[in-house]
C-alpha cells in the first residue's frame, strides 16, 4: 500500500494509493534523470579550484556533490547544464562543454 517505490504516475494502480494521494517517501523525485535535459555539461579543472563552495551553493538543482576531500563534483545524473556554476566560479575553474552524442 501507499505508493512506495512507484516512480511514474502511469504505474500506480488505484488500490495502491495512499489515503488522500499523500506521498510518504520524502525526496522520491531523485530517480528522475534531469541530466537528460542538458545540452552542455560542466567540466571542473581541479588545478584551478580553490574549494570555495560557491558552485555548490548556487546550483538550483543541488547537482553539485561536496566530496570528503573538500572538492566538489557535478552530479551529472541531475545536472541540467544551466551554467550558473561556471558563471559564478571565481577562478574560472568550470567550463561548459557541449554534450555530444555517444
Amino acid at each position, binding site marked *: 500500500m501507499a505508493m512506495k517505490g512507484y516512480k511514474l504516475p502511469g504505474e500506480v494502480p488505484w488500490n495502491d494509493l495512499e489515503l488522500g494521494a499523500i506521498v*510518504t517517501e520524502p525526496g522520491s523525485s531523485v530517480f528522475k534523470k534531469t541530466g537528460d535535459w542538458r545540452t552542455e555539461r560542466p567540466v571542473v579543472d581541479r588545478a584551478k579550484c580553490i574549494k570555495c563552495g560557491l558552485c555548490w551553493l548556487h546550483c538550483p538543482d543541488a547537482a553539485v556533490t561536496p566530496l570528503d576531500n573538500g572538492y566538489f563534483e557535478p552530479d551529472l545524473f541531475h545536472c541540467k547544464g544551466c551554467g550558473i556554476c561556471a558563471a559564478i566560479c571565481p577562478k574560472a575553474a568550470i567550463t561548459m562543454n557541449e554534450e555530444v552524442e555517444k
Partner: protein
Amino acid sequence: MSKRVVLEASHAVAEAVKMADVDLIAAYPITPQTHIPERLAEMVAEGDLDAAYVPVESEHSAMSAVLGAAAVGARSFTTTAGQGLELMHEALYIASSHRYPIVMAVCNRTLSAPINIWCDHSDVMACRDVGWIQVFCQNNQEAFDMTLWAFRVAEDPKVMFPTMVHLDGFILSHVTEPLVLPDPKDAAAFIPRYDYRLALRPETPTSHGCFGPPDIYFEVKYAQELALRESRSVIDQGWKELGEAFGRHYQAVETYKAEGATTLLVTMGSLGETAKMVVDAKRAKGEAVGHLNLRLWRPFPFADFRKAVKGVKTLVVVDRCLSFGGPGGPLVSELKSALFDLDDRPKVVSFVAGVGGREVDDAAFEYMIDRGQELAKTGTDCLYEPLQIRGLATGTGVRG
C-alpha cells in the same frame, strides 16, 4: 448525567462542538449561521472550550484554515451558509480529496441574486458532488446529535471524509426548543481519540496535495469514490453507537407511519416535522399516507431508499430549491434515478416549495399530498409543480 435543556439549534450545534473538544474553529460570519460561531467564540473566551478560534476574513479562508489544521492532525470545525458555502466551493473538493475529517455545520440558505438570507436548499444542491458525507437535521436534538456523530464518523480510519451537517437556516437554526444533552464525559467517550497517521510533522515529512496528471488522476478519484461509498458501514455503525449510548436512533432513511402506506411524502430537513403533523392528520382520517425523511444525502442510500418505498404507489417529493433548466427538483431527480431500473416502482410527483425562505405550512402539505395523488392517477407532462407563486394559477406545472 444527561440533562434536558432548552437551546437554540445553533447553540445546540455549538454544544456538540464543545463536547467534541475540537482543537480549532475557523469561521466567517454569515446570516443565518452567525449564532454558531458567536456561541463558540464565547465558549473559547470564557475558557469553556480550549480551541484556537481563528476569525478568518472570508469563507474561502475558513475552509482553507481548517484544511491546514486538519493536515496537521487537529480536530477542526467550521460553519457557513448560502453564499459562504459557494465561496468555499473549490476548497470543499480539496477537503474530500485529501481525506481530512473536517466537520462543518451548514445553516441552509438560498443563493443570490436577489440577495436573500432565508432558507432553502440551493446552497446544498450546488455541493452534491464535492465528496463530503452529508446529513440533514429536522430539529434541535438532531442538530446536536448529528454534529457529535459527525466527528465520530469522519475521523474513523475506515472513513476519513469531511462531513456536512445541514440545518435549515432560521427555520431550524434559530428555533429554541428542548433537547437532551448527554453528560460531557459520555459525549467525549463517544468520539475516540483522534490520531491522524499522516499528519504533517517534521519527523514524518509527507507531501499533501501533489500534482496529478491524467495518468493517475482517475485512479485517485476512483479510490476516493469507492471509499466514500464504503463509509456507509461506519455511518450506520456511528448511529448504532449513538443509539446505544444516548437512546436516540437514527438511520439513513427514516419512515413515519409508512406501514401499509400507499402514498409517501418525501422531504429533507425541517420540512419533515411539518410533514409528520400532516401525516398524523391524514391517518386520523383513514388515509394511507406516510412520510419518508431522507437523512443521509451523501453517500446516497440507494438500497435503503428502494427498500423503504417498496409497495408504495405514490411518492410525493418536496424539493426545497430549483435546478434551472434541469430535471426538476434536484432531490426528486436523484430519487427517480434510484428507482429507474426497478420493474415495480412508485409514481413520483414533484413539488418545489419553500424557496427563498417561504413557509411551507400544513395546508401546503395537505395540498401537495392530494394534488400528488391526483397527478399520479392522471399522469402529467410536467417535471414539477412550484407551490404558491403569486400570479400563477394553482396547479400549473413546469414542463421540461
